């Protein structure tokens, strides 16, 4: 466990120095411990791959006390047993106007588009955390054979529900936002629903699978 001040009111807790399940399990457990018994000074927490950022009320504590409390919580967190994760299936219509980068991705790896689809949809992904925009889940790890760098210049507008890849990660854009990931398809499902609990379709730690669907199925499943 390593600490670093992110700002005068936020501290980063590093629980590993690489992306992977062992570090992430420690992140999940510390998150659970923080949510179970939130200290009075806790304002926010942002879990990521191998770190958590903890924002605190600077009028109530200083960073030394925050670190001491987090150290104690981490000790206790190690005994937490996490429940079985949920599985979420995301239907995806790949390619054409829904996935304008699918052909480029295939070419870059010397594959056919159908092979990229096959590889992308034959894996179960771990939802490491939500960030960037509400409901945007960072899913990993994308198989090395189709790992592709981000676009050199991001799109000003990525349509909502686009399924995208970047590096060893994949994700679905919940909203129409700017974005630099490569778009390979689109899901008819709504990723962030303010009238449901939880609001996010994919929560941290969910196990996510993508299922290829046809355009007809997409239209049938699309919200009106």
């Amino acid at each position, binding site marked *: 466990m390593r600490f670093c001040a992110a700002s005068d009111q936020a501290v980063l807790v590093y629980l590993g120095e690489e992306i992977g399940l062992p570090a992430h399990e420690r992140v999940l457990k510390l998150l659970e411990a923080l949510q179970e018994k939130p200290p009075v000074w806790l304002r926010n927490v942002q879990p990521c791959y191998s770190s958590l950022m903890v924002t605190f009320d600077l009028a109530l504590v200083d960073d030394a006390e925050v670190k001491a409390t987090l150290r104690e919580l981490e000790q206790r967190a190690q005994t937490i047993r996490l429940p079985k994760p949920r599985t979420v299936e995301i239907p995806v219509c790949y390619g054409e106007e829904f996935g304008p980068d699918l052909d480029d991705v295939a070419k870059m790896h010397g594959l056919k588009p159908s092979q990229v689809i096959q590889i992308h949809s034959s894996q179960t992904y771990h939802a490491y955390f939500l960030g960037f925009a509400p409901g945007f889940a960072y899913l990993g790890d994308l198989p090395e054979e189709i790992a592709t760098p981000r676009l050199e210049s991001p799109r000003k507008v990525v349509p909502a529900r686009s399924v995208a890849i970047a590096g060893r990660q994949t994700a679905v854009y919940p909203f129409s936002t700017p974005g630099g990931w490569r778009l390979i398809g689109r899901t008819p499902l709504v990723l962030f629903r303010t009238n449901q609990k939880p609001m*996010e379709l994919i929560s941290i730690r969910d196990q996510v699978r993508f299922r290829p669907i046809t355009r007809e199925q997409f239209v049938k499943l699309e919200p009106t």
Partner: protein
Amino acid sequence: MRRLLVESPGLLTTVQDLGREGYGPIGLSPSGAADPVALRLGNLLVGNGPGAAGLEMTLLGGSFAFPEGAIIAIVGADFGATVNGRLVEMWTPHTLPPGAKLNLGHTKNFARCYLAVAGGIQVEPFLGSASTHLLSGLGGHEGRAMRKGDVLNLGVAEIQPRARTISQAVLLSLKPRRILRVTEGPQSDQFSEEAKHSFYRSTFRVSEESDRMGLRLAGPAVMADTTGQMITEGVPLGAIQITPSGQAIILLVDQQTAGGYPKIANVIGVDLHRIGQLRPHVEIRFEQTSLGVARSLWVEQEGLLSKPESLFA
């Protein structure tokens, strides 16, 4: 019920309160007024609690009608506010008669002007806050900026506010700054001494491509050592992240919650409301300070803001 009619919306006018904090686990940034100190003072003047919702206007204000009248205060940047054609004093409450029209123009100094209204602006709260989160189109009034013809409901005023003005001394102590105080960022060791030296000695200009997510700065490129690849991690409000091309971006209230760019520094708490007042083309610099100094300044500022008696002229 009292109403506010939007006759012209201005450049970018949104409903904001002090934001919704605590939703990092679902990837949602707090939002809220970019200059929360101004909004708090505005609410105090009209007799609201500090977290009531007001309107945040950006660079160019709008025109609003109050068919049933209202008690208002104009705070933050000076947009030359007039009521029924007469200039109104800022930082003090005004009672508007039924049918009054409020007009605001171009900014005369900073980026954001706030309209605080007795009773607050009433919208359906989203996760406990009225703030508009523009990136996701959530919160506020239909999750978007005001448009001509919008009608907003006003709440019932809790107490009749007294005619008091925020003192010049207080305004001076909270005034926007061109020299922002920062603490070291978590990746500051990814920058050479030379790069850091240049960062702290250079002047940066706020670019027009700035919004509530972040302020993009133009200036000398600040290059990180490319050897230090970093893993995406949480990013705080006021983080100064450096893109691969060496551009500095200061994260603002609608910020992304996680990012993979190295952060050279972070604006300290007492200067966070000040970055909300930086407008395009303004030149700024950074001055390094310690966590200890940042904390004592914060405690001092929050102490001042929590004692209403000491704020008035």
